[in-house]
């Protein structure tokens, strides 16, 4: 280079010219700005809502607000079933393997490290053996169940230890404070079902009222969505949505838990003593409000392992049996109501009675006996009952139809309005299609089937001066806001006249006298009217008659009835007579119930109806020596 010269335009200069440089810079800056601007437009315009949603998701937390299942309470408000919160403790063994370790060194010198260290701290709180716990917390998996169903308070203590990798899942548990006394009536909840998607649990009732009224007891879960900081603290003035949970409705039963317990323990003891297959006690007042529905065997609601279907059933409503002699009351009620007989109508009862293709007998052999209608009932004579039944109409078919109408009116053959799971309506044949023998057997309660509640209902109708009220079990419901609604009373209908009902009560008093079949059911101070039953029991498994059904159903006080107690024993092995097997249970339960409800003793003298006529010494002899058993033989 000798001297500087102006470069020619066509000459290539290795250095960029200043204006060129400026241009390149400008273009670069503009390009950069365009890219940034475009990205800005893309972010703000196109993806804005999605990104804002993602950001909201990051800081939004949704919590389920659980609804409480309704309680089940008795008439006095004693809790029969309630729901409580429980926690399942879940561990993450992979996370726990690094417990109290930082860069392979213990972080805090106070505690051990790894699963052993965590177990060391958890064991005393949870009350689990340390070695067992260590085994549970060790592993490469991410999920291990440590403890099931601990109380929230205990979980709080576990939570306060602050061990990372230990979490809890909320569960609800149903508790039944009255235990096995009312488990078959109240029912039980099984293992809850979990929804795969929402992880929410739904109750799965197995039996009883829990199942029958599940939709009422069930609440509706709510949820809460709020914005929170990284530490889990709610951001004030952030978005917050809450849908409150709606708790379930509580049921108030007509049941008295004390009576229920008394009945349950009495029948369970008797079932064990007699080796019976099952037993039932029904207690109701004359308006047929059920005060107890005890069923043995029962189940322990705290231990649902190995439960059988039989244990879940409340036999008072689910088991049907041939009532036997207790149904003679219906036949005699029909005879009285139709005006074809009175309490002192005279019958000559032979020792055997050939009818159709069968010869009927009484429970004990005897010659011709001169019994009144009251005597027929007191002695529980099958033959006497047939003779009284035949008076209804000269035509046997019409007689069957008349009796059938009375059965229906007394509530046989139809389910009650209780809507109880597994309830049976009993079995009542079509009177037009009865077999020849059946036309006679239904008169003394064989060849038809009833439930214990239906059988007790007959006596409650007689106690209520002939008006039958549909049995009720639920007195009312209370909504979660505390509104109490009384359930409507059962529908009532007149079945027999008040006069007939009074006569029947007078006649049934003799059953519980020295002269009757159930002296064991006598209660000092109270007049008791009742009827024993010892029926041949049809065994479904064997497909034939096998064993007996022993029963005693009675009402007290007979002069001013308040309560009805029915005791039914299925297939007792050691003692199958209604009077001596079921009678004592009746006495025990009824005595307790009368005292507990403060019912005054009878003021009237006993109705001393004559049981025999024409000075029939043989019959009286039979009665006084206690040779009167009571079997509706076939």
């Amino acid at each position: 280079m000798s001297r500087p010269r102006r470069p020619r335009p066509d000459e290539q200069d290795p250095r960029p010219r200043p204006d060129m440089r400026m241009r390149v810079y400008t273009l670069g800056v503009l390009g950069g700005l365009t890219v940034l601007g475009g990205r800005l437009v893309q972010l703000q315009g196109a993806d804005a809502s999605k990104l804002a949603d993602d950001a909201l998701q990051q800081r939004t937390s949704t919590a389920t607000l659980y609804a409480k299942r309704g309680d089940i309470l008795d008439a006095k408000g004693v809790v029969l079933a309630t729901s409580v919160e429980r926690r399942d403790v879940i561990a993450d063994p992979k996370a726990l393997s690094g417990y109290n370790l930082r860069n392979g060194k213990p972080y805090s010198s106070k505690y051990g490290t790894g699963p052993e260290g965590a177990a060391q701290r958890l064991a005393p709180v949870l009350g689990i053996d340390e070695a067992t716990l260590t085994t549970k917390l060790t592993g490469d998996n991410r999920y291990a169940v440590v403890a099931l169903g601990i109380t929230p308070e205990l979980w709080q203590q576990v939570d306060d230890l602050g061990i990372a990798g230990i979490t809890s899942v909320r569960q609800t548990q149903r508790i039944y404070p009255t235990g096995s006394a009312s488990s078959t009536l109240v029912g039980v909840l099984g293992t809850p079902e979990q929804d795969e998607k929402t992880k929410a649990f739904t109750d799965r009732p197995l039996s009883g009222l829990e199942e029958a009224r599940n939709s009422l007891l069930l609440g509706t879960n709510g949820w809460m969505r709020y914005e929170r900081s990284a530490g889990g603290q709610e951001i004030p003035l952030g978005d917050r949505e809450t849908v409150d949970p709606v708790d379930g409705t509580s049921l108030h039963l007509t049941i008295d838990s004390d009576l229920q317990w008394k009945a349950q323990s009495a029948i369970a003891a008797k079932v064990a003593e007699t080796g019976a297959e099952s037993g039932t006690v029904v207690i109701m007042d004359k308006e047929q409000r059920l005060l107890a529905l005890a069923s043995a065997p029962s189940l322990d609601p705290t231990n649902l392992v190995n439960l059988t279907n039989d244990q879940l059933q409340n036999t008072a409503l689910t088991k049907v049996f041939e009532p036997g002699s207790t149904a003679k009351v219906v036949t005699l009620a029909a005879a009285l109501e139709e005006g074809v007989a009175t309490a002192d109508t005279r019958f000559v009862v032979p020792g055997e009675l050939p009818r159709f293709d069968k010869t009927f007998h009484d429970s004990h052999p005897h010659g011709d006996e001169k019994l009144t209608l009251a005597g027929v009932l007191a002695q529980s004579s099958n033959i006497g009952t047939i003779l009284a039944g035949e008076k209804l109409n000269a035509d046997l078919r019409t007689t069957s139809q008349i009796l059938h109408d009375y059965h229906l009116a007394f509530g046989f053959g139809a389910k009650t309005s209780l809507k109880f799971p597994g309830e049976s309506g009993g079995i009542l044949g079509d009177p037009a299609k009865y077999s020849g023998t059946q036309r006679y057997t239904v008169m003394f309660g064989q060849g038809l089937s009833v439930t214990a509640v239906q059988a007790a209902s007959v006596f409650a109708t007689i106690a209520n001066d002939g008006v039958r009220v549909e049995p009720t079990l639920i007195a009312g419901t209370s909504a979660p806001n505390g509104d109490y609604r009384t359930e409507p009373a059962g529908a009532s209908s007149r079945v027999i006249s008040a006069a007939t009902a009074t006569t029947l009560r007078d006649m049934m008093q003799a059953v519980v006298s020295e002269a009757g079949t159930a002296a064991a059911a006598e209660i000092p101070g109270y007049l008791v009217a009742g009827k024993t039953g010892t029926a041949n029991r049809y065994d479904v498994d064997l497909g034939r008659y096998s064993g007996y059904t022993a029963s005693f159903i009675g009402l007290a006080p007979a002069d001013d009835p308040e309560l009805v107690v029915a005791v039914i024993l299925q297939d007792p092995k050691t003692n199958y007579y209604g009077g001596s097997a079921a009678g004592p249970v009746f006495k025990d339960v009824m005595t307790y119930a009368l005292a507990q409800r403060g019912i005054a003793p009878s003021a009237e003298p006993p109705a001393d109806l004559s049981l025999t006529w024409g000075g029939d010494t043989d019959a009286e002899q039979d009665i006084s020596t206690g040779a009167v058993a009571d079997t509706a033989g076939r």
Partner: protein
Amino acid sequence: MSQPLIAARKAPVRQPGSSADTRPELQVVTPPATRRVRLPLPVACVLLLTLGLLGLLMTNIAIAGDAYEITDLQVTSGRLADQQQAVAEDLAQQSSPEHLATRAGELGMVPAPDPVHLTGTGAVGEATPAPRPSTAAGSPSPAPAPAR
């Protein structure tokens, strides 16, 4: 340079001696008795802004503090609810008839025998002394006096 000054510069200069005799006499006037101290506007603005910001900050702090307090109270409420539930559960268990019967048995109590009723016509029923408890648990019960 502001407009009035320019106007003043451009104003025609008075000729001296042209109207000296007609010039009004100037008088010394006393200044106003009090001069109001006035805060300069910019300072006032800054002060107002600062105060406003400070107020806003305080409000925010209070709200945030309340949020923490709410959380604490909710935790307390939850714990109390747990306690209440545990106690109610315990009470329900304790008051079940079965449990009461067991406890009564432990205390040496027995189910009452048939009651005797006093009516207008005299005593009804037969008085029987209570049976001795079968379980020897609990305190020894005094020998029941025969009721008469």
